[in-house]
């Protein structure tokens, strides 16, 4: 379209002058917009792009005293170390397991919950349910971590109830496999309500006459759920699922950091917590940067890949 307009303009000089005028006119019209973008652009440059240059540290033997310019380059040494060092291999593996489980169940639970909520006819009840289940999403993991460590401790309320029932105390946060279980369940608990919103939005777009027609044809409610309710949610479920692929190396730093302890490092430590401990607490800046860079790169590749997939699928579905 644009080239079709531009092509004839190039043919005569008078028209070319007109175009020059127009572009000057354009600048006079757009400079306020550039000015408006300037503060955000500068802030982003300083706090997002400048740190990217710090990634050079991943290829150096960085010493704070020598600075980034004076430190010695050692190539891919840190990356090689990362794949040979048992701790870092374990950490990558932990991250994959924990976030994989979170992604799968974080999709299934809101899906089922939306179906159940869709069957509620009393609007007031529905609204109260929605209000309450969205709430944990907005509470920080400092608060939730403090509450959970208190409630799930060896003498906490939950274990007292379990003892009373004769089941016996469970080491929710003290033993590796239970820790993973607790982390996944509490993450789902925090976010399932909020993640239901997109499914409910999809359901609100379903034409009620579909249900009426199915009713007339003698379909039971279960059949209606399988053939009307679920298909209405599946496209968005696929999109959400695909997009969450980009999160596979985020195990949930805030959550794990506020729940874990040295007893469960072997199975509960994830890349982000590991980077914080090695780099910031132990001062191994270069190694920490290298692990962080590895994570960011894989994340970038996965996000680009999954967006393409989602776009293709969503586009294919909608149009």
């Amino acid at each position, binding site marked *: 379209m644009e080239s079709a307009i531009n092509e004839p303009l190039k043919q005569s000089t008078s028209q070319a002058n007109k175009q020059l005028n127009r572009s000057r006119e354009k600048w006079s019209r*757009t400079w306020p917009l550039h000015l408006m973008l300037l503060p955000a652009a500068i802030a982003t440059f300083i706090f997002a792009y400048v740190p990217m240059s710090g990634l050079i540290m991943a290829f150096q033997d960085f010493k704070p005293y020598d600075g980034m310019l004076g430190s010695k380059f050692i190539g891919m040494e840190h990356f090689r170390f990362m794949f040979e060092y048992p701790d870092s291999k374990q950490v990558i593996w932990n991250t994959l397991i924990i976030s994989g489980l979170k992604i799968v169940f974080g999709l299934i639970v809101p899906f089922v919950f939306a179906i159940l909520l869709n069957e509620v006819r009393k609007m007031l009840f529905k609204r109260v349910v929605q209000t309450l289940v969205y709430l944990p999403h907005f509470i920080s993991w400092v608060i939730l971590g403090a509450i959970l460590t208190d409630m799930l401790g060896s003498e906490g309320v939950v274990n007292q109830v379990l003892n009373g029932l004769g089941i016996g105390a469970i080491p929710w946060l003290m033993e590796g496999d239970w820790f993973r279980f607790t982390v996944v369940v509490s993450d789902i608990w925090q976010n399932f309500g909020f993640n239901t919103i997109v499914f409910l939005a999809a359901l609100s777009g379903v034409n009620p006459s579909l249900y009426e027609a199915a009713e007339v044809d003698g379909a039971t409610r279960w059949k209606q759920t399988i053939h009307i309710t679920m298909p209405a949610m599946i496209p968005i479920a696929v999109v959400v699922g695909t997009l969450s692929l980009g999160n596979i190396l985020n195990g949930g730093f805030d959550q794990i950091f506020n729940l874990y302890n040295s007893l469960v490092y072997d199975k509960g430590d994830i890349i982000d917590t590991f980077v914080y401990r090695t780099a910031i607490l132990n001062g191994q800046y270069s190694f920490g940067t290298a692990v962080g860079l590895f994570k960011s790169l894989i994340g970038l590749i996965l996000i680009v890949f999954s967006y393409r997939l989602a776009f293709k699928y969503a586009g294919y579905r909608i149009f």
Partner: protein
Amino acid sequence: MYHKSAGYRTFSVFNYLLLTLICVSCILPLIHILAVSFSASSPANANLVGLWPIGFNWDAYAKTLNNDNFHNAMLVGVERTLLGTAVGMALMILAGYALSKDNGMFRSRSVYTWYFLFTMLFSGGIVPAYMLIRNLDLMNTIWALVLPGAVNVFNMVLLMNFFRAVPKELEEASLIDGAGQFRTLWSIYLPISMPALATISLFTMVTHWNSWFDGLLYITDYRKYPLSTFLQTIIVQQDFNKINPDINELKNISQRTVKSAQIFIGTLPILIVYPFLQRFFVKGIILGAVKE
């Protein structure tokens, strides 16, 4: 007429029951904490308190609110929330407005969009960010908590979408009447986007109030900790070394009732804004997202 079949009725009863249970599970932890905070300290320490206080009293709250360190942290928390929201909203409104213009009228728009979006896809990670704050000499200042997260690209895109939904004719009329872009933003777009601005402001405020990790990373002087970081250190890590409390204070803050009171006070601002937030995000964000 499926509602009337016996099978569906049984399902319905179970469904209401299950949903009620799930809802209860979402607020139970908070109620438990609230009950502990209002209890006498001996039943609380013995873990006898369930969902109702035993030996009701306000002691824990009095101790918490008389604690200077807690006071300080609360003030820093409020300060960073207000300052951070103000700075962030100013940057995001200006940028979001400019980005809401057509590609045809504002050619560089897509360059800017990619410039911002890329930061969502890739980042330097915490080590370079930490080095940057150190090199800029922002350690132990409120700006270390305000500036790095000021431009939240996701919120900026939401704002952009809200501005886009404003009818074009309004902008054209305003420009024809001789108003510049700044005037148009200020006098036309801002007043009619109030619900959107309120939504994003509330989101930003909640994010700031809940942020704790930047405090841990960039602030080494505990007297400058915001409340979330303070609670993280005292209650989650149980690290009292930094704060060096005297014996009396230590006895106070390690009590379960006092801990619970601190946790509850830390959550209170969220609980207060939550009803507004909820009304907005269901109507605003979702409708906005679906419409686009």
